[in-house]
């Protein structure tokens, strides 16, 4: 039958605003609040140099006399006021948190992107070709899952530390951290993509593409990949929260971000030394920031999973 009305194709933005997903977002308070908090934290990390009162990593701006200033109180010697206090070296905690969050987010996002790309590629191959390809990739994934991911990350970190020359170690630390977290995280992407690929592979549009004569590579990228991406998006969001926590854990253990480039985890490690001597703010504020960041991203991921799953509606 012919459509009587010929409505012009709506623009991309109109489509998004009209979509059920956006409607579900608009009407969910949890989604709105967590998205707002996430956006706020990400923006303040990105614009840290503009917001922060001092650059905590510029030694010239540090004054040891400012050390251990409590929040919202003038320093006993210099009379300077710090919103969230200062640490042992006189660094402004507020500024270190902003800069620390940059490192945490950078490591988290890059590690998840790395894990995602690796997982998608291996998952597509395993699901599409099946047989031995599938067996090898998925058994490797199974073996990897038998080790706790922190342990895998520590192993990779240890090896990398052993083979990099000492003068590059601090520069390399961040990248090794990304590699370590990314490598311990690809398995769940691969599993989900493999499963979804096996379902999509059986559908007739893939058969139609075969009939056209499209090569396997084109079918995987052009046809199957776009159809397996929505579960990947959900895992990526939840993984981001986990990666940020994993990075903080490793840094807390002292094998992550170096003190010259402290992430939230490094700040917490530094802070916990002073917890019992009464300087609670050095630990408390970075920990709260980590909590807010991980929680809001996680809630967003949870909401996304429910919103994209038609069976839960």
């Amino acid at each position, binding site marked *: *039958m012919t459509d009587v009305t*010929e409505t012009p*194709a709506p623009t991309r933005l109109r489509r998004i605003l009209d979509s059920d997903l956006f409607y579900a977002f608009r009407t969910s308070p949890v989604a709105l609040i967590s998205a707002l908090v996430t956006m706020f934290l990400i923006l303040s990390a990105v614009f840290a140099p503009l917001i922060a009162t001092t650059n905590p990593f510029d030694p010239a701006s540090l004054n040891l006399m400012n050390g251990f200033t409590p929040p919202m109180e003038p320093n006993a010697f210099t009379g300077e006021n710090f919103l969230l206090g200062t640490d042992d070296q006189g660094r402004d905690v507020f500024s270190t948190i902003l800069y620390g969050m940059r490192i945490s987010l950078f490591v988290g996002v890059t590690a998840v992107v790395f894990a995602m790309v690796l997982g998608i590629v291996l998952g597509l191959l395993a699901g599409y070709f099946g047989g031995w390809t599938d067996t090898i990739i998925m058994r490797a994934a199974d073996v990897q899952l038998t080790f706790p991911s922190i342990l895998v990350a520590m192993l990779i970190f240890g090896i990398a530390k052993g083979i990099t020359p000492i003068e590059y170690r601090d520069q390399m630390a961040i990248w090794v951290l990304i590699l370590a977290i990314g490598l311990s995280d690809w398995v769940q992407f691969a599993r989900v993509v493999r499963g979804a690929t096996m379902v999509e592979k059986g559908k007739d*549009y893939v058969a139609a593409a075969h009939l*056209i004569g499209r090569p396997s590579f084109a079918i995987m990228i052009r046809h199957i990949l776009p159809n397996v991406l929505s579960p990947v998006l959900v895992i990526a969001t939840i993984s981001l929260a986990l990666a940020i926590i994993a990075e903080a854990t490793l840094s807390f253990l002292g094998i992550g971000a170096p003190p010259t480039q402290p992430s939230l985890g490094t700040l917490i490690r530094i802070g916990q030394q002073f917890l019992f001597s009464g300087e609670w703010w050095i630990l408390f504020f970075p920990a709260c920031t980590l909590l807010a960041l991980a929680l809001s991203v996680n809630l967003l991921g949870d909401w996304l999973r429910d919103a994209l799953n038609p069976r839960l509606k």
Partner: protein
Amino acid sequence: MTDAILSIRNVTVEIPTRHGLFKPVKNVSYDIVPGEIRGVVGESGAGKSMTGNAIIGLLDDPAHISEGEIWLKGQRIDNLSAEELRRIRGKEISMIFQDPLTSLNPLFTVGEQLVETIQLHLGLSAGDAKTRAIELLDAVSIPNSTERFDQYPHQFSGGMRQRVVIALALCSEPSVIIADEPTTALDVSIQAQVLDLIKQLARDRSIGVILVTHDMGVIAETTEQVTVMYAGEVVENGTTDQVLGAPMHPYTQSLIAAVPRPHKKVHRFPQVSYGGRETVFKIEDLARNWTQSKPSKEGKMLEVKGLTKRFVEKASLIPSRTTYFTAVDNVSFDIKDGEVFGIVGESGSGKSTVARMIATLYEVDGGEVVFDGSDVVTMDAKDRAAYRKQIQMIFQDPFSSLNPRMKVGEIVAEPLIHHKILGRGQAVTRVAELLDKVGLARGAEDKYPHEFSGGQRQRISIARAIATQPRFLICDEPTSALDVSIQAQILNILKDLQEHLGLTMLFISHDLPVVRQMCDRVGVMKMGQMLEVSDSETLFSAAKHPYTAELLQLMPQLAQLDG
């Protein structure tokens, strides 16, 4: 009518959505008389199932009855509380669903499920309930009922399972049964048995039955009264003979006109032209620049010799221990230039597997597929690519055959660009032309498949299939997922393709009347074997093989139509 057991009066169902109020059922009224079967017929989305659900209070939130009344045995039931309604549902009104696989719990034996329901409604002791359950299994003609009592649903075939569901519906000795497409998932031969059973039970036990279906054949064979629904409204109510033989409403007339006749071949299907859904095809225009119509060697386009396909049933590391299931067993036939060759058979007969082997989607385990003189099975990659350019396929399920993440324009352009027939710029014009020819509105190329109905998607599939100007088209149940009026339109397009473009077709279907209308020659398959190949007129008038004769006999006769 005063003796009605169930009476639906002016029922309207509303679903509030964020796009506004949606009324899937508008002002529907009908009565059910004990011992009589009322058919409710209409196309998908006509609100026939929704009415059934409304009667027993199974509407999913936020759908609700906004107006009207439902009376059961002189008691109004639409305004009862959920608890009171639950007691009536099951006790007085039972339901039979379309898919017997999902309406039985796979973790309990059939006996357990029957006994539980009987105890719940009749309050019998365990022993008495078991005796009653076995009686019921006998009543629905399940052989060896005592042994089968202890079996699980997966040990029953589809037809047997639907019998169990019917037995389950009878447990509470209901006065009304709502059967929602009870035979749609079943093969013709089983369908006839299940419908006979429902007919007999209704008569013997004085049960009023609402039979919801889209199949005019089922209506003609089974029902006494019929209600025709269109877009949520009842357009016609009456006895089956009257509605089918002399339909009053233009929609009913057009619907009945579109039903493929089993008895005579027509040149074109009459178009359903109700509700301003006129469509114009311009397939003839395509013929002018259609290039690939050279004759094949000896006039035979495709020759299939001893084709065999085995699927691994149980894999084992030791090759001799691996067991196989032979899906296609030594099948041979040939298709001449410009011919439509049909394969009919019930589900699992291997007809789709044959199609997929010819399309090189499945590897061949034995035999030859000779296309225009050369064997496809042993071809090298380059020849295969050339072969694939000359064949195309139209699939059964219009929802899975189009990539949901690609725009329609990209879908249709893909074969053109892949085979380097046209550049990207020219392809755009060509795609617009193709979509226009198959009867889609302008602007279709910028939309995604989910914005189209099943019939429109099948048109898109056709546009994609003919984009490369193939010589040979494989149609694997192209209309079995579509409503009858849409089916007529799609079949007309296919007929036009064959007539004006000289396309050769392999047409696979389980629907005998459709096969009769479409095919020049027909092969009948059963359990992987080709039982009989013959001229379609000969096959329908004088079948040689007893299985074919049985299939033809089970075909709904539609005696009321055309006098």
